């Protein structure tokens, strides 16, 4: 008998496969000059997907820059994700009716999102919401004071916060072993007096279980949790990076043996929940979906130059009027010249 849980796993697999395809195409777009520097999520599909599945519409999500799967599951269209990486802030204007409506945008300065997530959690607590805040970061981010300050306040204020580390073993070229002498990143929770859990970041089922538990604990007012999901960055750091300069092909090769997408597909197939036909169909669907998203992305109208001033303050200050006029003139020229 097929259970709700099975449905969730199949849905999870579909998302993971879709995002893997999306990711490949995004890298291609960058290579052909149609996207900016892009942070691939290759190898992080299970983590991002589990986060998206575990969160409710009432929860808050505070992403870092590899969380494409989660944002997608929160209701951000793929073309909008491309729009962001294409150098356009409108990519962060997540749809008003989506679960992502109040989520923070991608965060570039490492770890700075974590204290903000604690702030959101304290707002939720103040308002007695039945909601949790999930914030993500990488292993490198755990070296920044922000990581610790956020966990510490979450501990002492008993905040409904879950911090999920994607420990993909590398911070650009710096291996996990040069970030910290702490035996496991989950142990860092100790310093804040909150529970810390390690989980296999290539195992969707395990991730969902751990996340469900931690988020429910948070929603129930029982406080914060730190989760370390152990994965491996199968891609270069970003499209601007060349990982072969600093890591061995053999390590990468080994990591591929354990990659999350195929692993889940095999598990689902064994359980009779997936098969070759469904795989072929779904891959075709992924291609269509991603092609459409790319099409939409490439045909988005350019933003006017005045946008750079129009959203800076709630109302344009008088002091900026002349500057806005200069930009409006530029827009005129672009349109007519």
């Amino acid at each position, binding site marked *: 008998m097929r259970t709700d849980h099975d449905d969730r796993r199949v849905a999870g697999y579909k998302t993971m496969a879709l995002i893997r395809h999306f990711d490949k195409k995004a890298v291609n777009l960058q290579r052909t000059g149609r996207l900016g520097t892009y942070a691939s999520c290759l190898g992080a599909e299970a983590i991002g997907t589990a986060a998206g599945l575990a969160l409710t519409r009432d929860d808050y999500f505070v992403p870092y820059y590899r969380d494409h799967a989660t944002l997608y599951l929160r209701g951000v269209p793929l073309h909008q994700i491309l729009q962001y990486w294409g150098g356009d802030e409108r990519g962060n204007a*997540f749809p008003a009716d989506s679960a992502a409506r109040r989520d923070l945008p991608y965060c570039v*300065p490492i770890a700075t999102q974590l204290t903000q997530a604690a702030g959101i959690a304290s707002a939720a607590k103040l308002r007695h919401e039945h909601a949790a805040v999930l914030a993500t970061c990488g292993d490198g981010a755990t070296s920044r004071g922000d990581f610790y*300050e956020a966990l510490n306040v979450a501990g002492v204020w008993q905040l409904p916060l879950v911090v999920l580390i994607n420990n993909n073993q590398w911070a650009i070229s710096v291996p996990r072993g040069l970030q910290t002498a702490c035996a496991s990143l989950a142990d860092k929770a100790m310093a804040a007096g909150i529970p810390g859990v390690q989980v296999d970041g290539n195992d969707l089922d395990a991730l969902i279980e751990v996340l469900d538990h931690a988020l429910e604990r948070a929603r129930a007012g029982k406080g914060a949790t730190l989760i370390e999901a152990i994965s491996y960055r199968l891609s270069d750091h970003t499209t601007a990076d060349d990982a072969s300069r600093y890591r061995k092909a053999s390590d990468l090769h080994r990591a591929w043996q354990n990659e999350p997408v195929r692993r889940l597909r095999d598990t689902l197939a064994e359980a009779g929940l997936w098969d070759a036909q469904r795989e072929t169909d779904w891959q075709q669907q992924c291609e269509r979906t991603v092609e459409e998203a790319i099409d939409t992305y490439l045909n988005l109208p350019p933003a006017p130059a005045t946008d750079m001033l129009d959203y800076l303050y709630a109302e344009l200050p008088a002091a900026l009027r002349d500057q806005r006029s200069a930009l409006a003139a530029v827009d005129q020229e672009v349109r007519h010249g």
Partner: protein
Amino acid sequence: MAELQTHSAHAVPMNLLEAVNRALARAMAEDDSVVLLGEDIGTNGGVFRATEGLKQQFGFRRVMDTPLAENLIAGLAVGMASQGLKPVAEIQFMGFIYAALEQILSHAARLRNRTRGRLSCPLVIRAPYGGGIHAPEHHSESTEALFAHIPGLRVVMPSSPARAHGLLLAAIQCPDPVIFLEPKRLYRLKRLPVVADGDPLPLDTCFTLRTGDDLTLISWGAAIHETLGAADQLAAEGINAEVIDVACLNPLDRDTLVASVSRTGRAVIVHEAPGHGGMGAEIAATLANQALLHLRAPVERVTGYDCPMPYFQLEPHYLPDEERIVAAAKRTLAY
């Protein structure tokens, strides 16, 4: 914009610190989403007592003593503000605000723009600033220029109880992030009438404190005190100085400044911060650009020296005083 001393039936005498305290209390009473956070602001009422009584009145949930970490305080405030709260964070002294700069510059000032209006960041960060109280090292800083150069932020520096009250109310209501710098040297200086139920003051205009035709003295924050004193000295010699309190350093009300100096032809700008790269430079550059043909003398700046505020033994030699302001004014007049 000109605002000469307001006297009203509802006016109550308050010092600047009390004005801050009353504005906070009123904002909290009128709007549930206003919350306070910072170090020692709860039971202790803040090291200067700016939040005295507020925890008792509004409870510890709305008056939060944070762990000791300024970067955390700013990050918490950004997160809260992103979800519609109106956090008013206190940084205990301006000298400890630097750890919060990344959150302020990279996030608070950019959240609305980054999300094209989907989210906003209506926070206020209050900090006592400036010298003259014989405080320990790092307790006497005037680094407003660092913040005034950050687009998306508003930087407000009151110089009287009434302006502290009205501008703080406005800062809290404002949908943009505001850095609100309080001249600690003036905190307890004197009690002046404040209309406790009066309107917020506008956040993007200068205040003309005194009109005059011979030259324009331009200042903000604590230095307004010496600037007004210098204007008195000059008046005693028959020289009529216009005195403008800039009050809001970003966005800056250039029009009022240019109009005044176009009329008087002479300007002296006074601030406590080091001169090099200080906000006096922006104002002097603006005047020289927009009022060039009206200038009858170079725009002068009377500022702190280009060194850190010295530990307090040498502080009196560092701070611009009436004598230096009067001398600059006279140089300008004799030019």
